[in-house]
């Protein structure tokens, strides 16, 4: 039985080190780890640092060489570019604003009340994520466009001429309907995590109802909301598919594309626009990270949290809540309905609904021109495999490696999260057009491999995060125990670590596959021949003609199915019930 003694005890006297020991002190560097680190840094250097570095270099190099900001300054004095900048920012802000209006009420009722159909609301509210915004845009044109269903309806009923999809408005609508689940998910999670005791304390202090929400709950949830909103903004600015489908080119992404593809790969302005996009993106991502890192205070999570499930709703309140959910989710699912309908339509012009139905659109994309789907599968699977192998190695080094340079590796591997797809595409084009593959005598950028590499870089952070989380679950002692039991390092990895992280790593790979399958921004820059183009570009090509709309929609349905199945699979594999599909 020990009794804690309050008496201060003398520390043992410092003993001088034996000289022999002092000599053999060294940083513990594992040679195997160091070699792996060198290989990974080389790969990331070529495929991440080099493309972005080249973009920066071109944008900042003057006519006679040497650093200059003159190109950047000229950007701000060119009316077209300024208009594009303003348009991009305005579209992003409105997307966040409308997304917030759609997301917050849903998040609040789902987190705070218990009512029949609550889980259905959660599921349906995340569904818009499976429809790429540029796919949704096609359907929205058909419904809200100049000759769309709703437009016609208003004209016939009230004699009103609506023009919802005109210009920026259409882009904002398509993006808001796609992106609002990001805000919904972050805010719902944050609301669920708010320690009930904080609210109860507020109530005991006399705050009730709206005042309680305003003074206690909102401030606690605000950081999560801000982080979610910033990321939504970044994604909205990054999305150039929607402006392209809707034919609105006066935005940053489309301008960069137009300069590079029409004026040429050496046109400085294209690169300058890229730099501006990178700056916007990096500022938002850094701000979001900063907010997240500061938000610990929002959730105490010291003791056991109050059991989930809020107040049960009855009567008119229940009716009101259900009505609101139905209205919001109904709006959010319009693109889905529209795309499916359009994909089966033969003729849908100047009528509320298609006047003739057909399976011909599917015949077109699967039988006559199957290359879009096939290419997409090949590129996405390739990107997923590459990024999974890279990510698993990186995660292992970051968590277990005995080697310097881990911070740098982590930083570079996560960098693509703040790089717009257009910029990755432009950087790849610039760097890899100069590299000719000797055995086929073609620039690397002209082969289909470029898509695999670009998608791999774009989505590496997703795979890395999944691998990181999976490896985090494997306590180092499991590996130690394997070593003690007689398994050398590689065998211990194969028999113990790999089986344990496989599920999470594959889940990450599926996420890469899914997001690569609907990648538009980098694709449109890199496409040089139609035979090489994946589904996303196919949708764009088809959507440019009235006759091709149906086929574009059919491809869109394929994209939706891929994303929906993949997301479901990823969530099953990672063993968690919540959406892993958040940036």
């Amino acid at each position: 039985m020990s009794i804690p003694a309050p008496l201060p005890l003398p520390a043992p006297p410092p003993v001088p080190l034996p000289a022999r020991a002092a000599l053999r002190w060294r940083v513990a560097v594992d040679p195997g780890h160091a070699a792996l680190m060198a290989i990974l840094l080389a790969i990331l250097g070529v495929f991440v640092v080099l493309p972005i570095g080249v973009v920066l270099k071109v944008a900042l190099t003057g006519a006679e060489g040497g650093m200059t900001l003159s190109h950047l300054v000229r950007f701000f004095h060119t009316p077209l570019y300024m208009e594009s900048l303003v348009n991009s920012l305005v579209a992003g802000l409105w997307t966040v604003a409308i997304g917030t209006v759609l997301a917050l009420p849903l998040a609040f009722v789902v987190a705070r009340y218990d009512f029949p159909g609550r889980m259905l609301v959660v599921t349906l509210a995340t569904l818009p994520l499976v429809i790429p915004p540029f796919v949704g845009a096609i359907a929205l044109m058909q419904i809200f466009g100049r000759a769309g269903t709703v437009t016609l309806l208003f004209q016939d009923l009230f004699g009103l001429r609506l023009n919802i999809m005109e210009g920026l408005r259409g882009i904002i609508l398509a993006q808001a309907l796609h992106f609002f689940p990001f805000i919904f998910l972050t805010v719902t999670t944050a609301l669920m995590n708010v320690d009930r005791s904080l609210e109860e304390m507020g109530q005991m202090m006399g705050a009730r109802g709206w005042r309680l929400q305003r003074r206690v709950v909102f401030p606690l949830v605000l950081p999560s909301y801000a982080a979610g909103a910033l990321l939504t903004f970044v994604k909205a600015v990054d999305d150039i598919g929607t402006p392209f489908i809707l034919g609105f080119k006066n935005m940053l992404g489309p301008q960069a594309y137009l300069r590079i593809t029409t004026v040429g790969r050496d046109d400085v302005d294209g690169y300058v626009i890229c730099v501006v996009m990178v700056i916007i993106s990096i500022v938002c991502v850094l701000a979001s990270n900063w907010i997240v890192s500061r938000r610990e205070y929002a959730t105490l999570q010291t003791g056991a949290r109050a059991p989930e499930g809020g107040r049960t709703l009855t009567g008119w309140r229940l009716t009101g809540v259900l009505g609101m959910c139905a209205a919001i989710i109904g709006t959010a699912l319009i693109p889905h309905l529209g795309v499916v309908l359009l994909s089966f339509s033969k003729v849908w012009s100047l009528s509320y609904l298609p006047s003739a139905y057909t399976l011909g659109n599917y015949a077109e994309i699967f039988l006559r021109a199957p290359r879009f789907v096939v290419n997409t599968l090949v590129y996405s699977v390739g990107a997923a495999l590459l990024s999974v192998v890279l990510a698993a190695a990186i995660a292992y080094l970051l968590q277990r490696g005995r080697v310097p340079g881990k911070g740098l590796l982590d930083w570079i591997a996560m960098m693509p999260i703040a790089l717009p797809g257009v910029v990755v595409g432009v950087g790849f084009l610039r760097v890899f057009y100069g590299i000719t593959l000797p055995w086929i005598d073609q620039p690397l950028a002209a082969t289909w491999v470029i898509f695999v590499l670009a998608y791999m870089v774009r989505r590496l952070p997703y795979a890395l995060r999944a691998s990181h989380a999976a490896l985090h679950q494997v306590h180092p002692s499991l590996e130690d125990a394997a070593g003690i039991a007689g398994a050398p390092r590689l065998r211990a990895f194969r028999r113990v670590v790999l089986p344990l992280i496989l599920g999470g790593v594959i889940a990450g790979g599926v996420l890469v596959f899914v997001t690569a399958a609907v990648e538009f921004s980098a694709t449109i820059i890199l496409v040089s021949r139609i035979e090489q183009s994946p589904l996303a570009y196919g949708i764009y090509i088809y959507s440019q003609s009235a006759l091709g709309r149906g086929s574009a929609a059919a491809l869109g349905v394929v994209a939706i199915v891929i994303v929906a199945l993949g997301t479901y699979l990823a969530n099953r594999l990672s063993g968690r019930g919540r959406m892993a599909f958040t940036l």
Partner: protein
Amino acid sequence: MRLQPVDVEVRGLHRRFRDAVAVHDLSLLIQRGEFFTFLGPSGCGKTTTLRMIAGLLEPDAGEILFDGRDMTRVPPWHRNIGMVFQNYALWPHMTVFENVAFGLVERRAPRGEISGRVEEALRLVGLEGLGSRLPSQLSGGQQQRVALARAVVVEPALLLLDEPLSNLDAKLRVQMRNELVKLQRQLGITTIYVTHDQEEALMLSTRVAVMHRGHLMQIGSPQDVYERPADPFVADFLGGANFLPGAVRATSGEGIAVVLEGGEVLHASASRNAGFAAGERVTVCLRPEVLDLVPADGAADGGNVLHGTLRLRNYLGWVMTCEIELRGGALIRAQAANPRVQLRFAEGGPIAVRFSPEDVLLLPGSA
């Protein structure tokens, strides 16, 4: 099982982490078949030492020898050791059978032999028939046994145990402790045990090494380190103790007289405290459990008596711990058995403690 235990020698072992020295110039010899324990508070270097012996951590300096063979640079998978980790480290994707068989598979044991040896090891720890379960389907105590079976099935030359009982509840811990000591005696395997729990250390070990801040403070049998602690740290860590500074006034054949700083004179037995000379400064070390609480006006009865005021009384049912402020101002702790009787002393009232000269331990120097 046909175990061939080794002796383990450690020479000048040294390891630091960034700016902190974890193990400092450690040298000792662990005999074949011994149950040897590293005991100390967290951060004392005991686990670092164990991990270096296991080969999971490389020492910055020093040597590790098994039976005189230098193992310092030999990786763990070639050391032929068994180890039980604090969190058991059972592989969650393998059944109990697969967990135990792992090491045999790695050692290329003949296929026909594996099943029998795994069954034998499971029987040894009382888990026969549970081979097809997953670790997650077992209780904490059962997981512990699987870890033990996995460690001994390969017939290791050395068994390492890293706080294996710390994740069990109190009752189970006592039970597992008894089983562990039985198993070790039965197998006769050299065993190195790491713990911060003095009871475990005293009960299990043939010898205990007490460590503090990377330094070896004392090494000896459980009775040695408890009855004859080398310094105040060991005395305090093992069982707890009160320390009072003083000086030897006179020595004689049967006793030593010590003057405390407050002027009180104590008598210590000379047989327990050999080698002190008159005038030497000493620290008087008194274990809380040797102090009898007596009324302040009671007779000395030939023992030592110190007077003071009862400051705090913690009634724990089976025992009562008290804080007493001595006349000189020093605070001491006493632990009284039979608290029902001792409740007669009120907090704030006068009190005295009585103890025999046999219970007085003198440490050289002043704390």
